[in-house]
C-alpha cells in the first residue's frame, strides 16, 4: 500500500476517533511524548492500560454482582479506573466512569449497573478501534523510516 495513502488513512482514522468523542486531548499529549527513544509509546501505554484495567474490570464485575451493592468499594475501584482511562484519553469511558461515581454517591444501584454496561461497551469498542489504528499506523511507518522496505 502506498505509504502516503496509508498515512492519510491513519490521519483520517484518528480524526474519526476524535469526532466520535472517543478520544480527547490526552491522546494528543501521548503522541507528543513519542519520539525516537520511545517510538511506540502510545501503543505501549494503551496496551498497558488494557492489560491492567482488565483486573479492574473483574473487580468491578464482582462488586456489582453483590447484594446489597458496596458503593464505597465500587467508588474506590471507579476512581482508579477513571484515572487510568483518562491517562490514555479515553473520553467516553471516562465520562461513563464519572456517571457511575455519581450513582455511587446517590446510592443508586440500578444506575450503577446500567452505566457500567454502557461503559464496558465503550471500553471494548475503543480497544478494537485503537488496535486497528495502531496496526494501520505501523504500516504507514514514521516518516524517518519511509525508505526502508517493509
Amino acid at each position: 500500500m502506498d505509504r502516503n495513502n496509508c498515512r492519510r488513512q491513519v490521519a483520517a482514522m484518528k480524526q474519526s476517533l476524535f469526532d466520535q468523542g472517543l478520544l480527547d486531548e490526552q491522546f494528543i499529549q501521548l503522541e507528543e511524548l513519542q519520539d525516537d527513544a520511545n517510538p511506540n509509546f502510545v501503543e505501549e501505554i494503551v496496551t498497558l492500560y488494557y492489560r491492567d484495567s482488565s483486573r479492574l474490570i473483574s473487580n468491578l464485575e464482582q462488586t456489582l454482582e453483590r447484594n446489597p451493592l458496596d458503593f464505597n468499594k465500587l467508588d474506590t475501584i471507579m476512581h482508579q479506573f477513571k484515572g487510568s482511562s483518562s491517562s490514555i484519553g479515553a473520553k467516553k469511558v471516562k465520562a461513563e466512569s464519572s456517571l457511575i461515581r455519581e450513582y455511587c454517591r446517590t446510592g443508586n444501584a440500578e444506575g450503577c449497573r446500567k452505566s457500567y454496561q454502557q461503559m464496558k461497551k465503550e471500553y471494548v469498542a475503543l480497544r478494537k478501534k485503537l488496535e486497528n489504528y495502531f496496526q494501520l499506523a505501523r504500516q504507514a511507518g514514521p516518516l524517518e523510516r519511509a525508505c526502508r522496505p517493509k
Partner: protein
Amino acid sequence: MVMDDSTDLLPIGMRVLAVDDDPTCLKVLETLLRRCEYHVTTTSQAIMALNMLRENKDKFDLVISDVHIPDMDGFKLLELVGLEMDLPVIMLSAYGDTKLAMKGISHGACDYLLKPVRLEELKNIWQHVIRKKKSDSKGKNKTNKPDNATSDSCSGLRSAGTENSDENGRLAKKRKDQDEDEDEVKENGNDNEDPSAQMKMRLIEQVLKN
C-alpha cells in the same frame, strides 16, 4: 539544582519521587516528568516511597503522589512526608472535588493536580520547591515588612500555576478564589492561620526584598 536567589533558577535535574499504584498513570507521569528534564524515581507503593525518603532525606526535592493508594491513605503519606521530611508534596487525583483538594491542602499538600496531568502543569512544579526553600530560610530571619505589597511581582509566579488549569473547571476557580482571599488577607494585615497562605505571604516579602 541551583538554589541561588540571584541567578536563574534551573529546574533541570530536579529530583522527583512519583507515587501511583496505577501502572498506566505512573508510566505516563514518569514520561512527562522526564520530558521536563527532571530526574524521576517511581514507585507504586506508599511504604516504598516512605522508606526511600527516610533512607536519605536529601535524595529528593519533591514528591508527587496519587491520593488513593491501597497500602496507605494518601493523606497520611502526605502528612508524614511533610512532617518528617519537610518536602513539598503534590497530590494527584482523578476526582476534582473541592473538599478533597482542601483536605489535601490542609494535610500539607502544596498543590493538587487533576488527572490526566498536563505537561504544562508539570513544567511549573519546580516553583513549589523554590517557594518552600525560600519560605524556610525566610522563617529563620523574620522581618516586619509592611503589608503594602502589590500583587504584580508575584502574580507571574502564581498565574503560571493557575493559568494552565482552566480545564480543571472548579479546581481552577478554587485556586483563583484562594489567591483572592490571600490578597484580602494581605490588605487586612491579619495573621492568617493557613500555612500555605503564610508561605505565600513570605514569598511576596522575599520577592520584594530582591
